[in-house]
């Protein structure tokens, strides 16, 4: 094992701060929620079984959404991955490479689209006065189960495709050539070479999609039309913020939600461990790409169109005629404060999530080098750090609400609660990016720099920092874009004086001010895509680091 280079003092501080943050933001609220539930009266236990139809509806929605997304994503990802291998060939035409990289960019756009924007866009298509109705095709699926599934598939199939494509691209072409020279046809090559290499990535992506669908809030709330399509998330929310407060009902929904997301999360951890044991490409293997052919150009152009299909629904928000009217004094006064709150939240969340994730990375590196059972301790710490990704923000918010009731009045609004919940939500994302970079620290280079007279800090600055700069910026931008349109955390702790931008959109939709909601959504989408494009450019400058 590589020795930890984290000095003892910094290591202990990092460990204490990380565990302190996680205790306050996650463990304590969850512990309070569970103990309060277990210690409650018979009524609460009855409520637990009363919400079972909602559990069934949630599972049904999530399973359908996941199954369709997984099948579509697998096919698209394999195709994209094969084309990407061709595009890496130095003899490949430039336009093939450009089509493929633009197609990949299109596939990555859905994760930058705020859910509130997606909901507005789908209403623009499927609503009673939507585009389909206007051209005489009344689909009549808005405010129904099918609309929610359709929106989830458009969100998640590109996610599965993106990861499958990455894994497929990394399969050494020599293995495929070898199988072919030994007589393997297309199906045999898929069965013996491709599938074993991509299966853990595919299963992980599928499970993550399942969890995202179970935890989906804004899309279900707006596209499901409230009561017609109820999931655990919307049921929990309605018990907390609609009408009279129903705490036993909310706790029952929260507990079910923990169970429903906890099991796939444990499976996900196991899959990811398997994936780590079976890396896509062996380090000592040369990486030969597929040979470009004239068919590649046509295929890459078709791929570009297919990838663009997944972005088209969201473009609908740009078609409203009200965009310029938002610049009038009336609307500006209406949205200036929510905009400021959203920006403050986004920047605070991005900075907080990056700092906590970096502390967690430092803490785990420190633990790895110090303790006698280093491997187990660091695995446990890694498990603890990624735990918040398995918990719905609303469940965490409910725990927060109960645990800190003496200090936070949700009906008065709490910026701090919103911020902590969002940091907790996004921190595992940052950690997942930072941890592999930390693991690949070039200790021998740091030692070499030190033997040449550099202090540990100077050595880090010249040897390690260049590897970290782009990922930190990338994660910061990604989280800021995500936080800008995040709905769940802000929905629990808003007040009339503290209404972030996504809630303004949601309210305008409720007041049938669709055009204004569309215009504001267009602004949010443009901001998110601009951030994503910036990230793509930054990532492009330092591809080795990103990998």
């Amino acid at each position: 094992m590589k020795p930890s280079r984290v000095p003892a003092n910094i290591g202990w501080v990092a460990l204490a701060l990380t565990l302190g943050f996680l205790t306050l933001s996650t463990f304590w609220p969850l512990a309070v929620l569970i103990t309060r539930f277990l210690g409650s009266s018979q009524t609460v236990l009855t409520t637990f079984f009363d919400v079972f139809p909602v559990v069934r509806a949630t599972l049904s929605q999530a399973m359908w959404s996941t199954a369709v997304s997984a099948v579509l994503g697998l096919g698209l990802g394999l195709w994209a991955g094969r084309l990407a291998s061709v595009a890496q060939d130095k003899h490949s035409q430039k336009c093939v490479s450009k089509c493929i990289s633009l197609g990949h960019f299109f596939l990555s756009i859905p994760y930058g689209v705020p859910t509130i924007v997606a909901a507005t866009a789908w209403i623009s298509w499927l609503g009673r006065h939507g585009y389909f109705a206007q051209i005489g095709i009344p689909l009549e699926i808005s405010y129904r189960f099918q609309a929610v599934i359709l929106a989830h598939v458009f969100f998640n199939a590109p996610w599965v495709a993106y990861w499958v494509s990455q894994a497929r691209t990394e399969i050494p072409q020599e293995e495929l050539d070898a199988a072919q020279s030994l007589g393997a046809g297309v199906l045999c090559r898929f069965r013996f070479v491709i599938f074993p290499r991509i299966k853990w990535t595919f299963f992980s992506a599928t499970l993550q999609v399942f969890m995202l669908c179970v935890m989906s809030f804004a899309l279900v709330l707006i596209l499901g039309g409230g009561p017609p399509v109820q999931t655990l998330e919307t049921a929990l929310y309605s018990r907390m913020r609609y009408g009279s407060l129903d705490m036993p009902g909310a706790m029952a929904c929260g507990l079910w939600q923990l169970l429903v997301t906890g099991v796939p999360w444990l499976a996900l951890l196991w899959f990811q461990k398997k994936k780590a044991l079976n890396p896509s490409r062996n380090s000592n293997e040369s990486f030969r790409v597929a040979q470009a052919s004239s068919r590649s150009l046509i295929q890459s152009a078709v791929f570009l169109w297919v990838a663009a299909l997944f972005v088209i629904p969201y473009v609908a928000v740009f078609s409203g005629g009200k965009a310029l009217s938002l610049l009038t004094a009336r609307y500006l006064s209406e949205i200036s404060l929510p905009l400021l709150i959203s920006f403050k939240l986004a920047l605070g969340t991005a900075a907080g999530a990056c700092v906590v994730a970096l502390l967690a990375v430092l803490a785990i590196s420190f633990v790895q080098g110090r303790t006698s059972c280093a491997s187990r301790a660091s695995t446990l710490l890694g498990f603890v750090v990624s735990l918040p990704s398995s918990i719905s923000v609303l469940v965490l918010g409910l725990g927060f609400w109960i645990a800190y009731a003496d200090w936070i009045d949700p009906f008065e609004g709490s910026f701090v609660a919103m911020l902590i919940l969002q940091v907790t939500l996004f921190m595992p994302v940052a950690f997942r990016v930072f941890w592999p970079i930390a693991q690949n620290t070039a200790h021998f280079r740091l030692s070499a720099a030190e033997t040449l007279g550099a202090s540990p800090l100077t050595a880090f600055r010249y040897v390690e920092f260049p590897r970290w700069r782009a990922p930190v910026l990338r994660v910061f931008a990604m989280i800021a874009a995500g936080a800008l349109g995040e709905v769940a955390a802000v929905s629990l702790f808003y007040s009339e004086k503290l209404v972030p931008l996504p809630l303004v959109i949601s309210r305008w939709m409720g007041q049938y001010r669709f055009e204004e909601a569309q215009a504001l959504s267009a602004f949010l989408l443009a901001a998110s895509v601009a951030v994503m494009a910036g990230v793509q450019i930054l990532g492009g400058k330092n591809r080795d680091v990103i990998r």
Partner: protein
Amino acid sequence: MSSGKEGLQVRGFFKKMDGFDLRADFEIPQGVRAVLLGKSGSGKTTLLRVLAGIEKADAGSVVLGGKEISQVSPKDRDIGVVFQEQALFPALDVMENATFGLRMRGVSRDERVALADPWLKRLGLHKQSFAAVTQLSGGERQRVAFIRALIWKPKLLLLDEPFSALDAELRQTLRLELLDLHKQWPVPVLLVTHDAEDAQALATVKFQIETSRAAEGREQRVVTQAFSS
């Protein structure tokens, strides 16, 4: 040693490469071990990939065992290939890797095991028959790659720098093992390498890639025979 229709004939081979044209006209009779020497980037691996059907030539014909195979897909060419980095399949164990070619030809599992056992014993791999290939050393992986390429009795064996990643002692051992295997299964062999020692130890015929400059200024590289031993 027989010649003519039994072996490999390459006629009028031409391929436009990045910065040069590659041309070749040669034949390798049955039982002959030919070595193609050339620097990195000279086009020798490309030639080998064209023979295996993985890449296409711009012109020329490839005849193997009297049959024109230029338009035949790689899986139907009956050519065994040992790749530079072995290209073993990590999802399959040693036995499954070694007998993959037989499996693709519909040989039953029992028969495959019966056929592979002597090969694995001969190369000292019988104790690891069902181990993951990722657990093998570099030399062991290379031995599995040799077995995988030969066990289904291809009509031609192509080797792409098979010893380049190994240390000197292991190279020597594996060269001897390859010679031993070839004595028993005397198919035509084409080995591409930049290592003169490999050529010295294994070649019965040597080819090299020579460079000339054509009138238009585009570099021409031609495969020529160096000498026969």
